[in-house]
């Protein structure tokens, strides 16, 4: 494998890791506050559709992004209503949200655009175009560092850079602010937070709202940056891979970045099985590469390689003492 192929693979790793990272951080906020969320997939899918649809009709990708975030937050609100207000089962609510998004997106797309459940292709301002970082063109011929800067770091859409900035942002918010401390506390011991006179319900709704925003950006990235338009079921299990990455990262932001890059690399390699074969000298089925994120997560969950301990109050509705 030559240097350029490596750069290309790493480049698509970044591209494919971005939606995983955004969804993973979304899940991180929600689960750190004690709300399990297996509806990441559905929220991303709804956001992908609405951002593509609005971007196409208005011609502005930024309005599309807003619409995507709005759709995702609406589903977040539903999840909050079911699991916080009515103290329902958070897992069942997540399952319902995934199906709701899966069905509604196709139904609305079909009655809106009549193209078999997809949106028309996005062009021009209706898409997030790649950004060329300063001096990238000039430096591309510098040996070694030039291609890394030009191919790998430059030339992504703005959402990729936003996603990367979300990692230190989330870390700061969770570990260096009062809000973050309270949010983490509410996922471990909500009764203590309540005793301190802070609203458990308010904090949990805030966490679920942040989750909605991040999932919305992830979905918008899929349909307006990674691809040009919405197609049926375009999230293709990414919400679940993000969930896997979250466990892999043991619910910590920086680790989430590395977990998502690892899973993104596996996805990128699955697309280039010829490269894998030439490096390893054996043929690796791409089915194996595709399912490695899931297999690795099961191994981590089994506790053979370190132990993944979820937030203590995760999955339980908080009932004030009566």
């Amino acid at each position, binding site marked *: 494998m030559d240097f350029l192929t490596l750069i290309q693979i790493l480049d698509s790793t970044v591209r494919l890791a971005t939606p995983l990272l955004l969804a993973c951080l979304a899940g991180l906020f929600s689960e750190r506050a004690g709300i399990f969320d*297996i509806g990441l997939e559905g929220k991303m899918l709804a956001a992908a559709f609405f951002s593509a649809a609005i971007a196409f009709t208005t011609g502005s990708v930024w309005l599309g992004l807003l619409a995507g975030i709005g759709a995702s937050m609406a589903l977040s609100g*539903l999840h909050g*209503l*079911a*699991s916080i207000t*009515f*103290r*329902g*089962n*958070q*897992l*069942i*609510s997540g*399952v*319902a*949200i*995934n*199906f*709701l998004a*899966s*069905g*509604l997106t*196709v*139904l*609305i797309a*079909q*009655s809106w655009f009549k193209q078999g*459940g997809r949106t028309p292709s996005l062009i021009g301002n209706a898409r997030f175009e790649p950004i060329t970082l300063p001096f990238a063109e000039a430096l591309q011929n510098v040996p070694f560092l030039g291609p890394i800067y030009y191919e790998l770091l430059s030339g992504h859409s703005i959402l990729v850079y936003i996603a990367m900035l979300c990692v230190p942002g989330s870390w700061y918010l969770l570990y260096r602010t009062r809000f973050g401390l309270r949010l983490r506390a509410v996922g471990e011991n909500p009764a203590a937070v309540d005793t301190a006179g802070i609203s458990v319900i308010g904090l949990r709704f805030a966490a679920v709202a942040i989750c909605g925003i991040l999932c919305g950006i992830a979905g918008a990235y899929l349909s307006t940056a990674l691809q040009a338009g919405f197609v049926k079921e375009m999230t293709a*299990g990414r919400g*679940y891979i993000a*969930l*896997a990455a979250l*466990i892999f990262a043991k619910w910590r932001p920086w680790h989430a970045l590395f977990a998502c890059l690892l899973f993104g690399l596996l996805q990128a390699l699955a697309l280039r099985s010829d490269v894998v074969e030439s490096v390893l000298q054996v043929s690796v*089925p791409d*089915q*194996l590469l*595709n*399912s490695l994120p*899931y*297999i690795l*997560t*099961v191994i981590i*969950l*089994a*506790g053979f390689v370190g132990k993944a301990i*979820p937030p203590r109050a995760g999955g339980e509705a908080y009932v004030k003492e009566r």
Partner: protein
Amino acid sequence: MDVMPRWADVILVPIISLLIAFAISALVILAIGQDPVAAVKIMITGALGSTYGWGYTLYYATNFIFTGLAVSIAFHAKLFNIGGEGQATLGGLGVALVCLSVDWPHWALALPAALVGGAVFGAAWAAIPAYLQAKRGSHIVITTIMFNFIGLALLNYVLTNILRPQGQMDPASARFPEGANLPTLHDILAPIGISFSKAAPANITFIIAVLACVLVWLFIWRTRVGYELRAFGHSQPGAVYAGISPVKITMIAMLISGGLAGLMATNNVMGEAERLVLNSVEGAGFIGIAVALMGRSHPFGVFLAAILFGFLYQGGAELALWASIPRELIVVIQALVILFTGALDNMVRMPIQKLFLALRRSKAEG
């Protein structure tokens, strides 16, 4: 003392939830510019208006009975088996291997063997998450989700690289031998003078599914292990104090659950497709969740809910054919049913409880 009488809990609350789900579905149909009344008419004539329609309704219902029972058994032990999809996928592999390994002389020999094959493979796929939950405390919801994807990848590999006959393009196994073809309801009902559509795929596994409902009922409420399973589901510390082993119950509940999901393959793989294709389960594993929630995890409730979803599935297919409403409408209905009978259960339950309390109070005063 319970706030509500039993009939309200078992019948009234699910029916109100269902009505809300259907009302919202009607609004969705209106919103996409179609007529809900006409849609319901098409669904009823398409699914129940002919023996052909019934044949499809019962065929789908058979799938949902198996996956619904699978989710229910796990629910009784307070385990959420979201992996019915993967277990049914692997069950399909088991059934296919059994059907392809021998040139079966008669279906009466092939069916029991296929049932064992499907159940064993389905149970095996549930065994690893069950073991990890019981012994290592890994959350069963996450592991079963992961196993759905791993199962699909595994089947994809086996179909493209091992089971696919030479010269065939699509990833599917060879056709099963003639002797492994199951009798359809047409074949069963014709000798007793009832004419039933020849084209419909409903087959003898429907009877096995009904039998499975009875057996599951007997198991849960009439055996010692079933009692232990329910006790474990109600209170884990209580069950442990009574000498019930959590490891044993978790394993038993999940093995039976996976086995039931695997049994589904005798219907769709052996009874209908008569070969193994890639996406043979078609989401039936997930519909099992809706069916179990709606049926309140009781085998009779599961049976009724499965028939309802069979009707929705067949009716939805007719809608896609005759009205320009995509098949995805059923997915939306399914989501709403899961939402209202599952996650938003309290939203429906609380006002009804208040109503009954008020009634009782006024009776006590008057």
